[in-house]
């Protein structure tokens, strides 16, 4: 009897050892399926926060165990936050950022590549602009992040002011733009400029001044940096294109006086009717709807020069290395890219989705001025930021030199002075490239 009891006990013990882990395993699977997941999303465009929150709430209805917390900051502060938190693995699970400031983190292996299902989605022909998909490639050839929205530029022009100046419509060439600006500028009795003909970006922190300069440099045939056949780079503005662009700025400020440092600029000036035209992204439409709903304006593609095109700055969503639930994070990013959610993004903020195959007809019918942002022509090229970690420093330092140059009235009718400004700036650009081992000698 004792023997039987012993055998039963041993068998029971062995069975319990076998069954317990199985039952525990069952519990684990179940707990993973219903596990409460909280994802954090940080962004640098505060106007998009309501969109993320609405989409996150919709996503939560479909996935009750997943909650997304959104936090946005002004762009410059946000870029600093990323610099401090990504290397320390303290960043959010999902990061909203342009590919060019993220390149330094990608190069350092601090951002993981996108999974294959996301890459397949991203690289489907005709889904996203080719230039913006190419910009997602890291130095290792892998794709990082998924495209979300983009900053495409168009000319915003005030129809009443153009009519008053006897102008037929938006300028189609660079020459027209310069000539129209002179006709549109308005001064008071003392000769002070009270309305600019074309609002240029003459000052401002960060790289914005450089980016806007680049938009006019492109039609003149130049670029901030250009890639050589050996894959290395050099400054692309110390040439006739750069000269013509800087001369245009100097002339418009100091010779034709169609713009002035002392008056309002950009979207604010446009909404206050203190400028007749300027170039900017689609968010201005959403912003103007709130701040100046009665403004009679329209949009037009960027003007032509020796070449024609538009600078597109993509903004992507990345999943951080420290994210504990990357599958859920990528799933939410894909959810953000659905037609319905992209229409909501466009209607709410004016930011244009990168997805070209999204059905935006309802939004475009409601607000036809978005159509200029989707303008397409075989000669109208879409160009974007090069994927170099050093590009932010190059563009920011170039911008600082341009801010200084725009203040210098001695550059009027001074070709040697203009060329010296460009040559000094190019030496700095090339020295940054050299330090990074990327200069085409």
């Amino acid at each position, binding site marked *: 009897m004792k023997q039987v009891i012993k055998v039963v006990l041993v068998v029971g013990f062995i069975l319990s050892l076998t069954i317990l882990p199985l039952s525990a395993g069952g519990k684990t699977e179940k707990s993973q399926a219903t596990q409460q997941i909280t994802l954090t999303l940080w962004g640098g465009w505060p106007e998009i926060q309501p969109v993320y929150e609405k989409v996150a709430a919709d996503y939560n209805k479909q996935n009750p165990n997943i909650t997304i917390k959104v936090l946005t900051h002004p762009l410059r502060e946000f870029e600093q936050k990323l610099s401090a938190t990504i290397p320390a693995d303290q960043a959010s699970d999902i990061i909203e950022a342009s590919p060019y400031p993220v390149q330094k983190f990608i190069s350092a292996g601090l951002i993981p590549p996108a999974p294959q299902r996301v890459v397949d989605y991203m690289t489907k022909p005709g889904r996203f602009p080719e230039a913006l998909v190419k910009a997602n490639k890291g130095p290792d050839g892998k794709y990082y992040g998924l495209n979300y929205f983009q900053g495409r530029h168009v000319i915003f022009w005030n129809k009443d002011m153009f009519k008053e100046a006897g102008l037929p419509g938006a300028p189609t060439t660079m020459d027209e733009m310069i000539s129209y600006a002179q006709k549109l500028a308005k001064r008071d009795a003392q000769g002070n400029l009270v309305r600019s003909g074309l609002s240029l970006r003459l*000052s401002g*922190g960060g790289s914005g001044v450089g980016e806007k300069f680049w938009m006019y440099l492109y039609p003149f045939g130049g670029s901030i940096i250009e890639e050589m056949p050996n894959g290395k780079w050099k400054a692309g503005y110390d040439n006739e294109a750069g000269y013509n662009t800087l001369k245009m700025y100097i002339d418009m400020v100091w010779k034709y006086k169609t713009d002035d*440092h002392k008056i309002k600029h950009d979207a604010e000036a446009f909404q206050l009717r203190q400028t007749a035209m300027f170039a900017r992204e689609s968010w201005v439409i959403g912003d103007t709807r709130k701040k100046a709903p009665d403004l009679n304006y329209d949009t037009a593609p960027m003007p032509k020069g020796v070449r024609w095109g538009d600078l597109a700055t993509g903004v992507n969503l990345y999943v951080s290395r420290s994210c504990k639930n990357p599958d859920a994070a990528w799933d939410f990013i894909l959810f953000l890219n659905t037609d319905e959610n992209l229409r909501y993004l466009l209607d709410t903020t004016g930011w244009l989705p990168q997805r070209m195959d999204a059905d935006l007809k309802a939004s475009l019918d409601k607000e036809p001025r978005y159509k200029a942002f989707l303008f397409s022509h075989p000669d109208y090229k879409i160009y974007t930021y090069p994927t170099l970690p050093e590009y*932010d420093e190059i563009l920011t330092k170039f911008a600082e030199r341009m801010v200084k140059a725009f203040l210098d009235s001695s550059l009027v009718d001074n070709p040697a002075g203009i060329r010296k400004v460009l040559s000094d700036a190019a030496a700095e650009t090339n020295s940054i490239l050299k330090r990074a081992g990327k200069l085409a000698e």
Partner: protein
Amino acid sequence: MGGGNREGRAMVEKKRTWSLERKRRTFCYLALLPILSIFLIIRVIPIIRTFALSVTDASLISLKSNYIGLDNFKNLLSDDLFLLALKNTTLFAFATVALSVSMGLLLSLLMYRKSTLSPLYETIYFFPVITPMVPVAIIWKWIYDPSYGLMNYILFWFGIKPIGWLVYPDIALWAIVILSVWKVVGYNMMIFLVGLRNIPSMYYEAARIDGAMGFGLFRYITFPLLKPILLFIIVVTTINSYNVFTQVYVMTTGLQGAPGNTVRVLVYDIWENAFRYSRMGYASAEAVILFLIILLLTLAQFKIVKSEA
């Protein structure tokens, strides 16, 4: 026997006193330990680490760094932005120290004679000191606005054309000096006032008996006795002025559409190299130079004031 007992009692007493003294010291050290530890962690170690980083090519986003000797310091000497920042910061510091110290002293002399309105004036002058710098800088940015600013509005009454206060680098530097002096002058005034009120009246009485009057009293009594206070104020204002950042950032750089880097200062340059371009080694070299400048200026100020005392 009696003598032996006395010696024994004295020995016991001495031991007890020594033991009590040791306990007191131990208590003091233990009580100071937390604050010393915090000071070590957040002040001393980062300073040592900054010195160490300044001779490397350390990056914010890479764990690897190489020793590069004095290359960062050599490169700084040919870096136009650093040299501009150094020039601007030095001009700003000297102007702010000179104006805020002299105005603080003048105001304190005016306030010294107590009247019923003295507390009100003291509060008014001290108010900017307790207001945080960010809202102050935003308000002054509006005051300096070329189109709608109060400053240009006042100038317009006198037929002066609008001035781009924060647009042109030469003017912008002085515009920020004006704000900074306005912000700090109340603090300097209060410290001078404390110093003035601590000068015993008997010195003045004796000087008056000897025939000293007006400026003579100030020259031979007030000023010499205020020198320790003057040294303290100059040192503190110099250190704060060399560390200028917030007002410059908020008024000229921080936001889109702001005038831009019209006034580049050292701390901004350090911050940009460290956190925008991730060049921690290079930024550390700049921080070391800033540290040495402030240290040398402080030592020089101590020496000058002590030698005159």
